[in-house]
Every structure is written in C-alpha cells, then in structure tokens.
C-alpha cells in the first residue's frame, strides 16, 4: 500500500517510559538526527526526582520532549502532537501534555495487569474508550523486538534494553528520517561489542520496517529543513553552555579557571562538565558545602584565578554571607544559580524563577551585586562569558541566573569562533610605587587586582570596612557612607558597559511583554503569534537586571500596558514598578513548569480586551 505523506511545519514529540527504558537516549538520537537534517529544534528532558524508582510506577516515569520544525523553534512545545508511551504509568503521567486528536503510540506489553495497577488504572485505558479523542496506535514492541532478535541468542535483559530502538525506528519512518546517524552512533558506542551493534541497529530497522509494511500507520510526515543561519552547529544544553562560557572566558583572559562548588540539582552538570577540562588547567574543587564552595573561590580569586561557584537556590542561600565578603574585598567572582522550585528543598528537578530578589537583595548591609540572566540554553554560554567579563573588569562578584529548564533544555547552537568572542583583558597591578589597595579607576571605579607573589605589593584585605583608597580598617561614619556609595556607584556604572535593551516588535504600541530568563522562547512565540494576528504587541527580554540597560525606562513608557510574565509571584515586576513607577501587570504561575505560549497569548488578549 502506498502511504500518504503530509507536510508539517512543526511537530512536538514526547517519548515517555520507565526510567530504565532509555527514553533520554531515544529522544537524544531523534534530536541529533533531526538537527543533522536541518530542522530547528528545542528539547526538554523530564527526569524523575527518584534515582531508581520502582519499575512501572508513575514516579519512575522519564520523559523527553522535542519540538522541531521547518521554521524557527523557540520552545520545547506547549503540548505534544505525538506521545510515545512505553508503559501504562508513562501514559498516565504524560497524557495531559498531549494535544487533542494527538497521536499516541503505546507498547501494549507495558499495559499488563501489573503495570495498570502500578499506574493506578482500574481498567485498561487502551480498551475502555477513554482515549477516543486521540489517535491510538497499539504495538507490541516487546514481542516484536524479541522476534527481531530471536536468532541472536542474547540474554533477555539485553533484548529488553533494545526495545527503545524499535520505537525510535518507527518514529524515524513516520518522519522520513534517515537511520544513518543513529547507526553511526551505535557503532561508535558499542563498537567493542559487535553483538550489541547488531542487536540495536537490527531492532531499529525492525521498527522502521514494521511501520512501513503493516497497515498500522497509513500516514507519514515530512518536516522540511528550517531556514537556519548557515554555519556549524551543535546541540547544547544550558549547563554545558555555561561551563563552556567559563572556560572560554578564562582562556580569553589568560587566566586559569577555578570552580569551588558543592553538588546540587540541577546545577551539578556544570561541575561534571568542567571536571573534564583538565587540559585547559581548569581546577574543580568539590567542597564540603556551598560555603566552602564560594569561599574557596574567593581565595582562588585573591590568588589571580578566574573563580566561579555554581549552585541552585538553597546553595545560594548558604553563600549569602560570603557574597557580602566578595562585595567588600572587591575581587572578581562568578556565581551561577541554576534556579529550581523553592523554598527550602522545594522541587529539586523542576524549574522556577523565584530567586531574582534573593540574587539582587538577599544579603546583609548595602551589598550591590550585578545580576544577569540567560534566556535560552545556548545563551548560557554568552552570559557565563559576560558574567566573567564584568566580574574581571569591575572587580566584583556577578550573579548569573539560569534555571532548570535552561540548564537541562537544549537547542542547536551556532558555534562561536574564538576570534568572535569579546575581549577580556584583566591586568594585575605590578608596580609597587604608590600602591593603594582601594585606589579606583576613574571610569569603572574598580580597584586594582594585586595578587600574592607580586614583589612589593604586600597588603591585607578583608570583610571589615575599608578606608577609601588605603584599604585600612576604618570605622569613621563619613568613610563608611562614602564606601557604601562607591560600591553602589561601581555597580551602577556597569550600565555604561552593556548593550541597550532591544524590543522585538513595534517600538511603541498597546502592550509590551517584559520577561527575563528562561521564559524567552515562550514569550517570543506568543508575541509573534499575536503580531501575526495584527495586535500591537512587543517583547522586551531583560538579560541585564542589575544594573538595567539605560533605555529600559524609556522603552516602558512607549506602551499603554506592560505585562510581566514570571514563574514566581512577581519579582521583576516589583523592580520595574519601583524603578520606573509603571503600573505593570503580572502573569504569575508557579507550578515548577515553564509557561505555555497560549497562556501568555490569553493574557495578552485579556489585557487588550480591557480585563487587567
């Protein structure tokens, strides 16, 4: 039977199964193949918090969502069009993310009595009509996998581990993808074990053949390449990108990179990544706690390293006192907070944007720290590099906010070339003549970096208030007032050294949607759709929050309404109201999940409709 091919602009697929079913791998392979075929895309893994949850339970479900298209893709997708569910629990957990009339492909073997019970189904959803508003495809993937490998004499455990390739093969057929990339990967991965190469690649082909030859699937789809900027790409997630940004900055600055840190989800991957860069002289120090993480980094910075510390919310709380020390001693330090759901231990594997006020204000005393935020996974590279640049140039700690969604989510990244990176040229003071530790540069107000080992520059710094210029301990009222103001002014001056804010959409109009951080893609998608509908909407995404670009106030004043969607109870909005006295409107949701574009679109509509 000749099968019909339909052309689609964009598609979202969610692979879901038990933690042991290899869904991350399946999704990763589908991603790499689609990227190589020229689609734009965005992905998001969804791991369970438990490491080895019991098999078949809902809390052991692992998912991977990929949104790919022939057009620009900015988010991993609000809803999925296709759900691949390897067992009952994964269907149960993920059905809510499926589009009405969406496609469900299930492995029927995962819907036995035991699996149904574990998932909390009293009767099989495959049989009771509850899935009638979807297109359900039932395939006994387990049995077909076993059949495909019958003559290889492999242990049952090995066979079970290949069944995700059957599902992958079917999806490759359905979307007209080549098997070559994954076959190549299988050879690289299992090259030393020929029986595994044979098994995995045979099962994938069996999945492809099954879809091609049986009557189960009547339609296949084509998603053409997207008009991407020509060049070399790789797929990158935010944590990898942040790690590379730090390495690149240290390299450009001719400094060694030091990371002092303590493992915490979802930030640990930055440590894991950096621990592999020893040939760049990167030193990763896994400490006894977050306080040692930041204070060891401050020590390394005193010694002339580009020092960084990475963490998530609870860890940032522990670093609080030491951040104040870094403000006081005016040493460069990059602090990366990959935000997660809080407060306390909160939702460790879920995303949130609720640490903004903590980052800006959360210290004792007047303790100004520049705060910047990455807006997409690959932007974590740019902003980690930028955090390093600012820290080194202004001799200050800098907080970079990312979040779990950016850290784990990935997108194609047009590789930067070394020559295109901004210059970072820190200098150490070496001249002992008239050296004063707190003498400041006229333009940046930053003090000089004088490191131990330099002849004639012996000096002492610390957390006690300093006398202006000499840096000696000083408790005089006027001096403290002056120093408090100097430290604040230094951070304010960074506004002279960052790009002006740019609006996407009309430069004035009815409504400006202002976001920061990981909501970028969602807001962009929503605003673009509204623009297409002819609405007067624009998007401003703030990457520099403290200080802000100098033109933000002016931009805000050009729109009738300012809408600020945030995954918190309204933090940026407080700052905007306070700084610019704008009657901004909030859109706030704190579910541990990213916004969906439609939610923002609906809010835009209701604001335009006069319902604030």
């Amino acid at each position, binding site marked *: 039977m000749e099968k019909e091919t339909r052309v689609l602009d964009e598609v979202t697929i969610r692979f879901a199964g038990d933690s042991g079913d290899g869904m991350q791998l399946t999704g990763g392979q589908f991603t790499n193949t689609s990227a*190589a075929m*020229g689609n734009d895309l965005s992905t998001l893994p969804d791991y369970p918090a438990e490491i080895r949850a019991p098999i078949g339970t809902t809390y052991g479900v692992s998912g991977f969502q990929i949104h790919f298209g022939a057009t620009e893709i900015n988010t991993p997708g609000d809803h999925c069009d296709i759900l691949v569910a390897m067992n009952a629990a994964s269907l149960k957990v993920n059905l809510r993310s499926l589009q009405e009339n969406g496609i469900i492909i299930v492995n029927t073997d995962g819907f036995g009595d035991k699996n149904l019970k574990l998932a909390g189904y009293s009767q099989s959803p495959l049989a009771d009509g509850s899935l009638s508003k979807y297109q359900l495809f039932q395939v006994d993937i387990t049995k077909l996998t076993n059949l495909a490998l019958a003559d290889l004499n492999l242990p049952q455990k090995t066979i079970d581990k290949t069944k995700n390739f059957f599902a992958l093969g079917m999806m490759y057929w359905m979307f007209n993808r080549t098997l070559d990339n994954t076959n190549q990967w299988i050879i690289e991965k299992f090259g030393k074990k020929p029986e595994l190469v044979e098994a995995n690649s045979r099962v994938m082909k069996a999945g492809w053949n099954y879809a091609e030859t049986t009557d189960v699937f009547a339609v296949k789809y084509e998603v053409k390449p997207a008009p991407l*900027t*020509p*060049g*070399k*790409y*790789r*797929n990158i997630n935010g944590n990898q990108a942040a790690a*590379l940004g730090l*390495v*690149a900055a240290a*390299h450009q*600055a*001719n*400094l*060694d990179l030091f990371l002092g840190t303590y493992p915490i989800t979802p930030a640990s991957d930055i440590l894991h990544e950096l621990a592999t*860069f*020893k*040939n*760049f*002289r990167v*030193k990763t120090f896994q400490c*006894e*706690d977050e*306080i*040692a993480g930041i*204070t*060891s*980094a*401050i*020590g*390394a*910075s005193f*010694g*002339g*390293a580009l*020092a960084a510390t990475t963490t998530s919310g609870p860890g940032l709380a522990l670093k609080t*006192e*030491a951040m*104040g*020390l870094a403000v006081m*001693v005016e040493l460069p330090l990059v602090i990366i907070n990959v935000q997660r759901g809080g407060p306390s231990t909160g939702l460790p594997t879920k995303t949130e944007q609720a640490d903004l006020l903590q980052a800006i204000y959360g210290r004792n005393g007047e303790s100004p720290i520049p705060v910047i935020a990455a807006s997409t996974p690959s932007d974590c590279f740019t902003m980690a590099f930028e955090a390093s640049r600012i820290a080194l140039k202004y001799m200050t700690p800098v907080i970079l906010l990312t979040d779990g969604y950016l850290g784990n989510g990935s997108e194609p990244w047009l*590789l*930067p070339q*070394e020559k295109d990176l901004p210059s970072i040229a820190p*200098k*150490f003071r070496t001249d002992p003549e008239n050296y004063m530790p707190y003498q400041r540069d006229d333009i940046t107000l930053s003090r000089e970096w004088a*490191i*131990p*080992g*330099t*002849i004639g520059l*012996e*000096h*002492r*710094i*610390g*957390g006690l208030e300093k006398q202006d210029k000499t840096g000696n*301990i000083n408790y005089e009222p006027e001096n403290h007032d002056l120093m408090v103001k100097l430290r604040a002014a230094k951070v304010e001056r960074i506004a002279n050294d960052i790009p002006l804010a740019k609006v996407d959409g009309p430069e004035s109009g009815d409504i400006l949607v202002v976001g920061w951080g990981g909501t970028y893609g969602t807001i962009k998608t929503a605003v673009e759709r509204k623009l297409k509908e002819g609405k007067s909407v624009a998007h401003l995404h703030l990457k520099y929050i403290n200080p802000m670009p100098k033109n933000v106030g002016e931009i805000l004043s050009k729109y009738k309404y300012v809408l600020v969607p945030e995954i918190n109870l309204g933090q940026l909005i407080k700052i905007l109201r306070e700084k610019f006295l704008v009657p901004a409107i909030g859109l706030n949701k704190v579910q541990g999940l990213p916004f969906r574009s439609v939610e923002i679109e609906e809010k835009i509509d209701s604001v335009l409709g006069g319902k604030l």
Partner: protein
Amino acid sequence: MSILVDEAVNQSLVSTVKYTSKDFSSDQDVRWCPGCGDYSVLAQVQRILPELNYPKEKIVFISGIGCSSRFPYYMDTYGFHGIHGRATAIASGLKIARPDLMVWVATGDGDGLSIGGNHMIHVLRRNIDLNILLFNNQIYGLTKGQYSPTSEAGKITKSSPVGSVDMPFNPASLALGSGGTFVARSLDRDPKHMQTIIKRAAEHKGTSFVEIYQNCNVFNDGAFFQFTEKETKSDSVVFLEHGKPLVFGKDGDKGIKLDGFSPTVVSLKDGSHSTNDLLIHNEKDSTLAFILANMTYNAEMPRPVGIFLAIDRPRYEDEMEKQIDSAISKRGKGQLDKLLNGGDTWVIQ
C-alpha cells in the same frame, strides 16, 4: 599557573633577601588587649619567618573572625581577613589555585572548631599544604566571653551562668581523627617551644595543625596557667620529643609508660622504674599519636605538648596538578576553537 599570573609574580621559592623579624611587622597598630597571649604568637611567627628564607611576597596569612583572626593585619605579608569560620576554606582555594604560595591560617577555637569545624576536618583529610595556627583560649574573646567548644564542662560564662553542659573538643584528637598529617600543641608562654613547633609546621608538606594554648587575660585569665607557670608546669606537662622517652616532673622524676594501650605515670625516683621502661615518642606512629592526644583531658596524666604526629601523605594540590599535567600530556593543551567545535556537530549550508 596562567600566563598572566606567571608574568606578575616572583617565580622563585627562595628569598634573595635576608629578612629580620621587623620585615614582617606591618605598619598597623596592634589592637589586642595588653597582656593577651596573641602577642606571643605574633612575635614567634615574626621571629621564625626569616629563618624559612621564603620570599616575603609569597607568604599569605588568612584568618576568620575573632581576636586571634586579626593576626594578618599585623604581618607585613599578603593577608586576608575572611568571615567567621571560613579561613580554612578561603585558604584551600588560594593554595589549590596557587601552590607556589606559603599559606598560613590564623584561627580561634570558636572560628576553627565551632562555626568552621566542618571546613577544618575537611582540609585535614585533604592534606592541603596550609599551616594552621589555632589560638585556643577556651573562650570567645571577640564577642566578650561566651564559652567555646573547647571550654571545660561546667564553665561559667555570661552565656552559661550556672555552668556549661557542653563536653569540650580535644583539638588534637579531632585533628588526628580527621586524618591530619601534622598535629602539634604549643604554649603561648613558652616562646622557644613555640618557635620550634612553628618552624616544623612550616616545613611540613601537607596540612599542619598547631593548637596553641593562648591566655585571654580578659575573659578567661589563667586557663592554662597550670601548664605554663613555673610552679606547676613541670609536673603538669609532658613534652613530646621524637625518639625520646616521655619524662616529666621536677628534675625529671616521673615518666610515662604504656600499660596495654593506656599510658600510666610511673616514678623514676622510687627505684621501681627507669627511663628504659618508658614510652619512647615516635611522631611517625599514628596509633601512638591518638593515645598521647587522648591524655589531654585525663586528670591523672600530664598535659601532652609537642608534635603528636608528623607523617607524609600526598598533598591535595600536588595530586590535582598531576591530573592536569597528565590530561595535557594525553590530550594536548586545551585549544578553545577545538573545544567550541567539539561534540556532535553538523553544518547548515
């Protein structure tokens, strides 16, 4: 080290200048209470540093918060007065980033064992080459006299008006238990002894932990007088010397012998024992070090003072450098363009 650091700093590890103790005293007024034991530590350190022949600009003193933690301000070296309890962590980062520096830590019983106890045990197990001077005055001096984690049980202070019910740490046992490779104790009022210990601590490769009994004459005056004053010292203190029998008392009339694992005091005067029966100190023996350190709060025994343990173990920072060197020799020096172009890449035409 990085190119920039290399260019800025003196590469030599040997001083070409002959220093005197004056060279190590800064222009800042010393602000400890008159009579405070901290003065003695400062004097002995300034006395010994010239003997080490280490370039002054490569010496760094790092402290936390407390009276004792003011120490770096008075040294004409590089210095960092940190935050409460974190001196060891700040120093760890500095030493790992810059193994060429000689890094000292000045800390108190509160700073190093209470708020900073966690960092202390971890630096000891890692054996990072820091020289830690723990000023033990058995009190919180700077905050005006609360009991500390080394104050004796029953201690009456402002925060324990009817006596503290806390059991004190024995710093030497804690350091040994944490895997310390150099663990010693000295006395503020025995300058010669302190000088010897400070010098040995500086020469030790690995973390050196030196507990110094330090009199706080304002909030805990006389806490150690039994061990430091003429009348009582000889009967109350046994000095540990490598390879020598444990003799103490007026005219060396007493000794310590091992009874199973328990040290006991024997008389060398009544004819029952001679020095041949006594325990010979061996600072390489970690089991013995524990036994001796445990004599500390035993009322029957003299207070052990000296070097409990001095053994070699690889230093954290050296091991880290080795991994770096090996990565560079295997993979070549990191090249940024290669790194950025790494991973699974594809080209869009």
